[in-house]
């Protein structure tokens, strides 16, 4: 199932089968497709249709996993946190007032769970995501890459580019990484991102600019047509 705009969900349980199309599933046949609103799904869950809860959660999986990964930097920990967040959301669904989108609410729960785990497990390494003292207030000077060449989207079929993107993302400081994930990967608004992280919108914007420029910087030196770590000598 994919989430579509306007709070509507494209349900396709037959294909979902438990594996999303992105994970290798095939496209749905038209007969199995159905658009359902978030409100309808929530109502179904409240009436006891627990399967409907999975339909709400499934389109959020990518976003909440990457949000957890941004905080924790470890896939196994991120998966556990996502599982805990989903169960917590289910238990507390009565408290969800639909003032925000379900995906935003679930993201907030996931980030809180991830932060609690960092505080618990790696207290000495914990870096708060809140305002604190930002070392990133100054103007960031991007590196110059006069030979930057456009990387076409079709190149994402190549594993080495996907690995380079993941390396670039994980190389960002947590404060910047989580903002980039929420704004540019999960498409949260500036206000939603600020609320999720308990920071001001101005801080979201400052961090987003820096995160985007650093992502570009992190990818460009590797771009030699093969995204290898080492640039061949001219």
């Amino acid at each position: 199932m994919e989430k579509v705009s306007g709070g509507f969900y494209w349900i396709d349980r037959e294909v979902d089968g438990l594996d999303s199309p992105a994970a290798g599933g095939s496209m749905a046949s038209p007969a199995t497709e159905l658009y359902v609103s978030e409100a309808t799904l929530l109502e179904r869950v409240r009436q006891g249709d627990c399967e409907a809860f999975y339909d709400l959660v499934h389109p959020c999986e990518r976003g909440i996993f990457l949000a957890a990964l941004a905080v924790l930097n470890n896939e196994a920990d991120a998966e556990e946190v996502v599982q805990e967040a989903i169960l917590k959301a289910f238990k507390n669904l009565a408290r969800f007032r639909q003032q925000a989108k379900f995906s935003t609410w679930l993201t907030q729960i996931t980030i809180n769970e991830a932060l609690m785990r960092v505080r618990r497990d790696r207290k000495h390494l914990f870096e708060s995501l809140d305002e604190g003292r930002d070392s990133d207030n100054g103007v960031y000077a991007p590196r110059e890459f006069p030979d930057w060449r456009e990387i076409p989207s079709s190149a994402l079929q190549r594993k080495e580019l996907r690995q380079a993107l993941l390396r670039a993302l994980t190389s960002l400081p947590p404060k910047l990484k989580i903002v980039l994930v929420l704004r540019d990967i999960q498409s949260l608004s500036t206000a939603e991102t600020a609320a999720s992280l308990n920071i001001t919108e101005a801080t979201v914007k400052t961090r987003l600019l820096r995160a985007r420029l650093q992502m570009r910087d992190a990818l460009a030196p590797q771009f030699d047509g093969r995204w290898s770590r080492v640039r061949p000598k001219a």
Partner: protein
Amino acid sequence: VAMSIACEEVLQELSNYIDDEISPELREGIEQHLSWCRNCTITLDGTRNVLRLICDQRAFELPEGLSKRLYSKLQRHLAVQAR
């Protein structure tokens, strides 16, 4: 007449420019600057390129079987609750 803008200000507003969260006057000023400044144009194009890539569903692979494991965990939890 569009305002005259330095590279530093263009970079400072690059994100807002990409997100279309700036005034029409500032947009015009930035676009005029971009018309002659190669460095800022390269930075903007590269940043947009990276954003296009990371927005793509294929950019970051989820761990294999993640959906299935999440669903199974939820089912187990619901089964326990139903008892």
